[in-house]
Each structure stands twice: as C-alpha cells, then as structure tokens.
C-alpha cells in the first residue's frame, strides 16, 4: 500500500530518489513546510544554509560543474526566488545542470499580489531549460523526476520548480515516479551516418585541420574519445575558456586557449586552418571576434548535441549533431591517420612572440608590484596543477585561466556566457562540497569578492576548505583596462576604496595572509595550501596591470593587441 505523506515530505522522497546528497538553500514563508520536512532529513542531505539566494544558485552550479551531478537549491517565493535569477541565467548560458525549487503562494491566491508572490514561471521561462509550477501534491514525484532528467540530459541546463504552498501541505499517496520518455524532447539526437562520413572524409583531405574544443567535451565526458580523435588525425587543438580542462595543459596536441584573451597562435591559426572541427563549442563572440573576418577560408565541421547551435553564429559546412562521446569515435573510425607536422609547428612561431612579449612579463617580472599572472602560476605549481580552479569574473578570471595548468577533467569553473561577478566564491563552496577529495582554489578580484562576500558565513559554518586568492588592485580592473585602452584613461567608477579584507576574514574565523612583496608570495601560497581548511590569501597586485594579449571588442581575431 502507498504511504500517505505531505507534499513537502514527498519532495524529500523524490529528491532522495534522484540521489541528491547536498541542498543549498534559504528558508522563508512560502517554503516553510519543506524546510520543516528537511528537519527530519538532517542525515539524508547535507543542508547548506547560504547567506543569499544568489549564493545558493552559484554553489549549486559549482557543485554541478565539478562533479557532473545536478546541483539543487531550495528557496522561498518572491525575493528568494528573484535572487536566483542571476544564477539561473548563468546556468543556461553555461549549460549547467541545476534544479531550483522555490516556494510559491497557495494556488488559491495566485494572481492576487499575495505577499511575496511573483510569477516565477513567467519570469524564468526565457532563462531556464524548463520551468514548471507544482500546484498539486500528486504531481510532485512526476515533476521532480522530470526536472532532474531534463536538467542533466542532453545539453544540460537549469530547471525551475515553482512549488505552491498548498501542494506542500496537502496529503498524497506517494510512490516514486517512473519517468517515461518525453516525446517532445530528444536529448541525444542520433548521428546521421552521412554527416559522420562526410566529416571523416573532409578531415582526411585536410592539410591544416584544427580542432576547437569546448565544454561539450567535458559535459559529454568525451575526454578519451577526443584524444583518440586528435591522435589518429594528428590534429592540433585549441580550447575555449569553458573547455580548458577538456585536455591537459601539457598534452602535446593542446595548443592553448581561444578568444579575446586567448593565445596568439590559437587565434591567428583559426584563420589559417583549412578545416575547422568545432567540438561542443558555440562560437561565442568572445571566441570569434568580428564574424565577417572569422575563419572564412576554412570548411567548418560542427559537432554539437544542440541542433540550435548549428549555423547560429558560424555556418557549418558539415553539421554533426549528437553527443560528442558518440560522434567523435564514429568519425575517428572512418578517418585516415594524419600527419600535420609543419602545420602543428606553425603554432610555435606565434607562441614564441607571445612568450617574449606577454607571458615572460606576466610570470617572471624582476621588479615592481606583484603581477596577477605570477600569482596564478604560483598557486597552480603549489597544487601540482591538479586543483580545481574557480574564478570570479574580470582580470582575475582571465589571468587565472591563462596561467593555471590543468591535468584533470572538470578543473575549470568560471562564468563564461553570463560573465557573472560574484560567481566565484559560492561556486567554490559548491565545488568543494561536491568533490571533497580535490583542492579548490578560487581567484577573485576585489570587485567580485564583495559581490557575494556574505558567503564567507557559509564557509565558516560549513567548514568549507576553499583556498581563496584575492587579487586586490583597488580597481574594477577589467573595466579600468577598457577605459585605459578605449576611453582615454577616463577611470569612471572604477577606482575603489577597499576594506581590510584580512580583518573581514578574521571576523569569520578564517585564517588569512596579506602579501605585498614578491619574495613572500611562494611562502604565502605554501602556507595557504598547507593550512587545513579555508584560507584567504590577500595579494596586493599591480594596480594598473592589463590582461594581454587581447582582441579588441569588434576586431578580428587576427588583430590581437600584445601590449
């Protein structure tokens, strides 16, 4: 016989049925029955009280991105729900599987401007993969099963469940939902054999084939399939920001990073390749620069699980729609072995220029203030290049992503599509909880740190062992850089008076250290890594340092600025 339980308890059972072990949340009026039910499940879920609902969503994102499992948030209606919108938007743009469960006023008063009522489904439909209102306790098992399935399958994304209070308190005969297929949803399209064959043939004929690797490889867990493909064809590969750990940094066919602050060789050779194989990447404008001059000479093969990405920004000559874990081996099998020695060597000429004019200056300055690049490399070295890198947004992000090294998959958590300042700290909390056996290092600027600094409270309470690196330049550095380069040094609203961050850390009982001199950096990093638990490394970095090289906004990828 089916057990009769409340809707709130049914939600608990449904979450356990999905294997949820951690919930990031914040209580409030319309979700109180659920939090009351959670009191009985203290041992079934790690219950993480964040300090702001935006923190809950980014923590869920960090949890999801680092582990591949679905991140879960539970918040109240109204302001609790609207505070999740930034995280939901971030998750849709970066294909991150999270489920946001929000309380809602009772269905009888919907549409009456009841206290803390907002139309969450209406607001989240354009920014989520699926958004659904649960109005009856009978729908809970079905809706939760569907939500998790949609969030994690195909191209992952955020799902919103708007849970009315009456559905939380009413009684229901619960049984776990057996989710049948969703007829209107094809998460894993079947690859077309003609497309696979055409791709393999084109690659076989290519003189200068070039693989552009995106996060799709990480999401599809296709790391080995990618290596087999690259090795058989002897094809050089560049990675997007979100695809950085899809290949190890020292892998011989890894050429570097694409995009606005990517590597010179990788960008310039995009316009030299004769065949481009885009794998799980979406030709973001931060990767392509001016589209009218982007890769016009090349035939484009585009592998993507999402049909809507094909021809969205760059027209594909051969689209191969499907999960790259499935399509890559199919192509590899059909294509001949390749040898492109000269082509691969052509990257080195540009790398030498970048090494001399950019990288050496960023990593090995002999004098002057500490540079952001050397901080990132120092932390990477101290963790044997095996840590999870989480970043905030801005110069800290670009410097950390450029100079960190990656040896393991799922090692870069950064807000790519939305560019969400404030992402870093809570995302690091989520990652640290999802994969406790890995060191999590989060790089932040003084701007982004202050956007979700309240999550230090969560770190304190949950004893989250995150290594926080605050690169403080007393500016909103990225905007300042643009003002210097494109707005005649008019530093409008970018200089910033800062508090004493070490005192803030100590207020939360978090050990910290301020580093001003280069000679102290390595020792301070060592102290941070060796200190058990959370640590704030506060580094005073060069105030007016710029991230280079750079494709100026709207410019061609061939017109990278080096200084």
């Amino acid at each position, binding site marked *: 016989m089916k057990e009769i339980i409340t809707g709130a308890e049914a939600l608990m059972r449904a979450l356990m049925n999905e294997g949820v072990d951690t919930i990031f949340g914040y209580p409030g009026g319309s979700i109180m029955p659920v939090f009351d039910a959670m009191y009985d499940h203290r041992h079934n879920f790690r219950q993480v009280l964040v300090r702001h609902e935006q923190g809950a969503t980014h923590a869920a994102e960090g949890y999801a991105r680092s582990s591949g499992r679905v991140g879960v948030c539970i918040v109240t209606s109204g302001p609790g729900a609207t505070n999740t919108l930034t995280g939901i938007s971030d998750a849709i743009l970066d294909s991150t599987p999270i489920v946001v469960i929000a309380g809602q006023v009772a269905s009888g008063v919907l549409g009456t401007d009841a206290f803390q009522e907002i139309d969450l489904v209406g607001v989240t439909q*354009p920014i989520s993969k699926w958004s659904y209102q649960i109005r009856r306790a009978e729908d809970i098992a079905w809706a939760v099963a569907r939500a998790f399935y949609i969030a994690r399958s195909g191209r992952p994304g955020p799902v919103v469940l708007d849970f009315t209070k009456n559905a939380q308190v009413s009684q229901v005969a619960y049984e776990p939902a057996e989710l049948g297929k969703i007829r209107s949803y094809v998460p894993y399209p079947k690859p077309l054999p003609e497309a696979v064959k055409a791709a393999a043939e084109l690659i076989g004929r290519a003189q200068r084939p070039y693989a552009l690797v995106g996060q799709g490889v990480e999401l599809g867990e296709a790391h080995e399939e990618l290596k087999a493909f690259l090795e058989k064809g002897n094809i050089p590969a560049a990675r997007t920001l979100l695809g950085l750990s899809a290949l190890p940094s020292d892998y011989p066919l890894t050429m570097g990073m694409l995009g606005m602050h990517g590597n010179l060789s990788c960008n310039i050779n995009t316009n030299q390749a004769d065949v481009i194989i885009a794998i799980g990447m979406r030709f973001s404008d931060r990767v392509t620069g001016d589209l009218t001059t982007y890769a016009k000479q090349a035939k484009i093969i585009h592998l993507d699980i999402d049909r809507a990405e094909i021809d*969205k920004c760059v027209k594909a000559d051969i689209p191969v729609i499907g999960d790259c874990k499935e399509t890559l081996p199919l192509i590899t099998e059909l294509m001949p072995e390749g040898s492109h020695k000269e082509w691969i060597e052509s990257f080195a000429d540009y790398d030498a220029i970048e090494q001399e004019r950019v990288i050496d200056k960023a990593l090995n300055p002999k004098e002057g203030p500490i540079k952001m690049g050397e901080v990132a490399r120092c932390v990477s070295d101290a963790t044997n290049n095996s840590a999870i890198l989480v970043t905030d947004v801005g110069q800290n992000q670009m410097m950390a992503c450029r100079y960190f090294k990656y040896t393991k998959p799922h090692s870069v958590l950064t807000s790519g599509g939305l560019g969400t300042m404030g992402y870093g700290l809570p995302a690091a909390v989520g990652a640290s909880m999802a994969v406790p056996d890995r060191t999590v290092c989060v790089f932040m600027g003084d701007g982004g740190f202050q956007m979700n600094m309240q999550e230090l409270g969560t770190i304190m309470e949950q004893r989250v062992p995150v290594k926080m690196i605050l690169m403080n330049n007393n500016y909103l550095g990225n905007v300042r850089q643009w003002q210097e380069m494109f707005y005649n040094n008019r530093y409008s609203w970018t200089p910033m008076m800062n508090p004493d961050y070490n005192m803030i850390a100590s207020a939360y009982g978090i050990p910290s250290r301020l580093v001003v001199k280069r000679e102290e950096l390595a020792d301070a990093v060592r102290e941070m890594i060796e200190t058990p638990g959370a640590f704030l490394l506060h580094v005073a970095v060069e105030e007016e340092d710029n991230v280079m090289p750079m494709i100026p906004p709207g410019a061609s990828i061939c017109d990278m600025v080096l200084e």
Partner: protein
Amino acid sequence: MDKKLYTVIIYSENLAGVLNQVTSEFTRRQMNIETLNVSSSSIEGVHRYTLSLWSEEEIIQKVVKRLEKKIDILRANYYTEDEIFVQEVALYKISTPKLLDNKQISRIIRHNNARVIEINSTYTVVEQTGKTETIIKLYKEFAAEECVLQFVKSGHIAVTRDVIEHLTEQLYVFDEDANRTRE
C-alpha cells in the same frame, strides 16, 4: 536583407505557459507577430500555433530552431507563402437599417461572395473567408458605405502543401529518438 512574410507552424504539448515560451523567443529579438492563431490540432493533447511575421530567412531559421528546442514543443517549422495554403476568416457587423436603405451594400455582399450569417433589426453579421487582401477589400467597400459597426479577422490559418504529413511522421521519429539515452 529582404524581409518576407513567413508563416510559422508549431505543435506543442497542451500545457500552461507554452504561448509565453513561444512569444519570448520573438520578444527578445523585438520581432512583431502579425497574426497568431492557437487551437487544438487533429492529434489529441497537441496544440497547434500558426504565426505570421515579417523576417529575414536567416533570422526566422534560428528562431524556429530555438523554438523546437523548448521541452514542451514538439515541432516548429517556417514556410513562405508559396509553401502553404493560407486563409483567414472575417466577420463584419453592419447596420441593418443602412443595409435596407442602401442597395449598394447588398450588391457588395453578392459581388464578394460573402455570406450573411445573422440578421436582425439592428445589425447584420457577414462572414468572409479568403486571403487577407480579399478580406480587407470587402472591409474597405463596406467602410465606404459607412455601415460597419464592428470588424474582426482571424489570424492566418494554414496547411502545408506537402504531400506527407510531417507531424504524424515526426511523432513517430520522436518516439524512437526520445528513447535514446547515453550509454
């Protein structure tokens, strides 16, 4: 770039909020929907949307792909005017006293092959089916006689010129593909 009038036909699950999902894809590009018709389709539980709007092909192609990606949407396609049969229905509420006084009005009804569907002492309801131009022409003729009390026309309703019924076929394909899972 040349803008053309496109007709978009969408099949969706019959759930609350699908219309919002459809329109939001047009709203974010500030595309104005010219006509919109939503009704149940011949398949139980499946709704059919017919929209018409001016667009460039490159844009409408991208929008339609994004529409089809929505979880609750089964299928979305776009057509130019020569790929479909389009009709509209219009109702004209005209003054009965003017109809009786002015012989020109009944001549207009006859010449246009319009149909009188209701008549009483104050007003008469005339129905016309056809292309938009046919409907507008009749309206202008009535308006010239100053007899129109109300006028309404439906949005485009359309069927494709294809010999094969895509939705039935597509639902079958969906059934197979929706079962595909990651190994």
